[in-house]
């Protein structure tokens, strides 16, 4: 397995290079540029043509594209992710400030999804065509159909502005001390709605997958054999059926993570949470290429890593799959 891990990691390197090259070119192809926003927007009136040329030289924006990419790539290998055009801060610092927040929100949403979707999906499969099953199906489709930004605004409207139970924006209240139990409760209150929004869609779709996967397995001979042996229904479902049913679920889960990240872009914008999603939107608006590249590369690494973890999990769940 160690050998397999090394080989897969090495394979990921050309993949990431290809991804970064494509992103780099695509970013440069989008209309406007970091200085164009400057001309019309924020830094405006006092910027002269000479100033712009000086900035272009400084950031190497007049170099051919492949030269720019090579500079960026070789700096990255040396651990230098570049400097933001907008804030003047190192990209890695900016990402370092934001990544933990996003991972917290995503992680909690992911856990919520698992805790809700797997039992509900199993129960819906076991009690197929029961009222519970129909109810889950209806709610799942609603969950998949409701746009998350709308759901977020509705939650905010009801729980923050109408009932006044939950804080609407950010992840902490500046008036609450940033330490002790009060801070934990404050943080939890701020997290409820963003996590609920992010978990809704993924729970809804995962419930459907779990139900389908379990139905596939429950009908098979070996499950009937286990039932015929007189094993407790609980054992049959949770030990015998679930283990096989889990294999496709793992694939779906690995694919769910990039979706969660996309969801984070929306949730962070609506709830004014300072995470990677917002960093992405803001730097895209400002054409802050170094930050954009950093965010996208980190995202690519995350996706590739989770795919790898999914592959490793497969083998643990299903001995027929060999590390080759």
């Amino acid at each position, binding site marked *: 397995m160690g050998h397999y891990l090394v080989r897969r990691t090495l394979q990921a390197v050309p993949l990431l290079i290809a991804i970064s090259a494509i992103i780099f070119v695509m970013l440069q192809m989008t209309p406007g540029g970091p200085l164009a926003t400057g001309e019309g927007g924020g830094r405006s009136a006092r910027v002269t043509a000479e100033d712009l040329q000086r900035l272009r030289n400084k950031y190497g924006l007049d170099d051919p594209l492949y030269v720019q990419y090579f500079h960026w790539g070789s700096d990255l290998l040396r651990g230098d992710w570049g400097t933001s055009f907008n804030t003047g801060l190192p990209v890695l610092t900016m990402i370092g400030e934001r990544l933990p927040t996003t991972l917290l929100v995503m992680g909690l949403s992911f856990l919520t999804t698992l805790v809700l979707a797997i039992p509900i999906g199993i129960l819906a499969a076991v009690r197929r065509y029961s009222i519970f099953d129909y109810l889950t199906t209806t709610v799942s489709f609603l969950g998949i159909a409701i746009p998350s930004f709308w759901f977020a605004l509705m939650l905010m409207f009801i729980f923050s502005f109408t009932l006044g139970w939950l804080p609407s924006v*950010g992840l902490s209240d500046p008036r609450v001390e940033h330490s002790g139990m009060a801070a934990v409760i404050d943080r939890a209150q701020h997290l409820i709605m963003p996590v609920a929004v992010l978990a809704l869609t993924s729970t809804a779709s995962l419930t459907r997958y779990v139900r389908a996967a379990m139905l596939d397995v429950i009908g098979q001979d070996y499950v009937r054999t286990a039932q015929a042996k007189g094993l407790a229904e609980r054992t049959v479902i949770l030990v015998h059926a679930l283990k096989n049913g889990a294999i496709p679920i793992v694939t779906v889960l690995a694919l769910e993570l990039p979706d969660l990240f996309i969801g984070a872009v929306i949730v962070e914008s609506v709830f004014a949470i*300072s995470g990677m999603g917002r960093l992405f939107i*803001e730097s895209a608006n400002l054409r802050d290429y170094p930050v954009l590249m950093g965010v996208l590369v980190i995202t690519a690494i995350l996706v590739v890593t989770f795919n790898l973890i999914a592959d490793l999990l497969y083998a643990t769940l299903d001995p027929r799959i060999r590390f080759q």
Partner: protein
Amino acid sequence: MVHATAAPQAAHEHTNVMDRRLHRRGLLAGTTAAAMLAALRGTGLSASAAAQDAGEPTRGGKAVIALIQEPGQMNPFFNVQSGSFLSTLALDPLFVPDADGNYLPVLAAEVPTLENGGISEDFLTITYKLRDGITWSDGEPFTADDVVFSFEIYKNPESTTALGTAYELIESVTAIDPLTVEVKMSDINPAYLTLWDSEGPVQPKHLFESSAVTQEHPLARLPVGTGPFVFTDWKTGDEITLTRNEKYRDPERPYLDGVTIKITPEKETAIASFIAGEFDTIYFITTGDLPTLSAAQEAGDGIVVALQEGPSHVEWLWLNMSDNGDPGKPHPVLGDPAIREAMDHGIDRQTVIDEVLGGFGYQVGSFIYAGWAAVDIPAATYDPALANSLLDEAGWVMGDDGVRVKDGVRASLRYQTIAGDQTRELYQQVVQQNMKDIGIELVIENVPSNTIFGSWEEGGIFMRGDYDILMSRAGYFVDPASWAKDFTSDQIPSDEFPGGFNRVRYQSEAFDEAVNAAAQTLDQAVRGEAYTTAAQQFAADRPSLPLYSSAWGWTWNERLQGVDTAFWEGMWPSSAGWYVNEG
């Protein structure tokens, strides 16, 4: 300095640059505006301001400000993004303009005048006396050397400063003694009181290793100043924290322990959260937010909305005085003064304000409408009958299609503004109907911002004079010098002078003379008289028609006390006096 001559669209249309410069209470509250204000306020400002003063200020507590647009740097010396204005919580200007546009000394000991010798006989040397006993928040003394050093940063070609055109006229800055700075100008500089104001505050020399300072410098991001609060931390995208400056010049103040700036990019959310009590104030609100906020105030949600008195952003109808940009040929329709006068009387401004803006606007008639130089000229009365008779007398005969004709020329004009602004499109239709009533046809052809405000080289239609009527907001900050200069005939843009800003191609010897006379002196009395002449000439010639001025204001939670809006920049310069009533 408000509307620099280099980048038209940035200066005139981008709220980014405009917003805070025009935040202020003007002085020209005409009778209509004053009456309307009183009606609008109801129990509003005066009553709540009185309530504010009840109770003694107490120490402690924090204020939370929601910031909509996070800037890249907080030091306005290096950044003109609007959010960096909040650095005024930590940085003091030399002078601050009050609500009427009169400057008060802050870090300076007095305002330089001709009488006190601060301004030389030839107006080219200004002597600034600094206030004694001021220290930076780290305890180092604030001296003339800091002012000199701040100019050296600006002069250093390796620095990336974001200072206004007022600095271009500076020849030298010298420290005469630790509390006296002498500034020599290459030309008369009416903006001498805006040097080292809240947009370009003095930088602490002892904290910089050289005068080459770029925006990557840590002090460009989080500056150090002499103001009531000290920047302590900035979690990008999340919050910026300030704590009480223990070295502040007034030991009693500030009352608050600190201020947290919470970045909340969605404005609708920020306003809703503010009304729900999560924030103490918002930077910044615009006219469009006032109906929501006023309704919340009426509903007893515990917020205060303070409207400024008098006009701020004026929406102008720019009338092209030339035939397709050629100043030698008058516009076939708009070139006739009768047409312009009839239009002025034909527009029902009050309907636009009441029906489209929800009452949050003022009628304006004066070209110099605010600040110390404000000239009180009422807006033209709405009188379609008068407008029609003016046109009849001038020989514009009503045609069969309802459009007047004179010498074979139809009174049909293109009417353009930036596409996509629904409020504007609504009142464009009001104006269009008003003009139809007097036999002038307006054809609405809205276009993207760049098309209108592009430079001469880019072929922007405003610059090139390729339009009939354009509509946009514009104005000036306190002093009208550069604003007035942009309407003199030597500023007409051309191939030889692509940076010219007289885009309506107004040509009036009397106006030119008055504006140039004002530019020859720093004697306020002489200047005021000259600008009165200029404004009267402008109102008589009507090269542009003011449509309305938007109302402007500030809002804060009743929890926050001691807020004073008696400044041009509203509530913000009063932060040292803010306190919270936790009871």
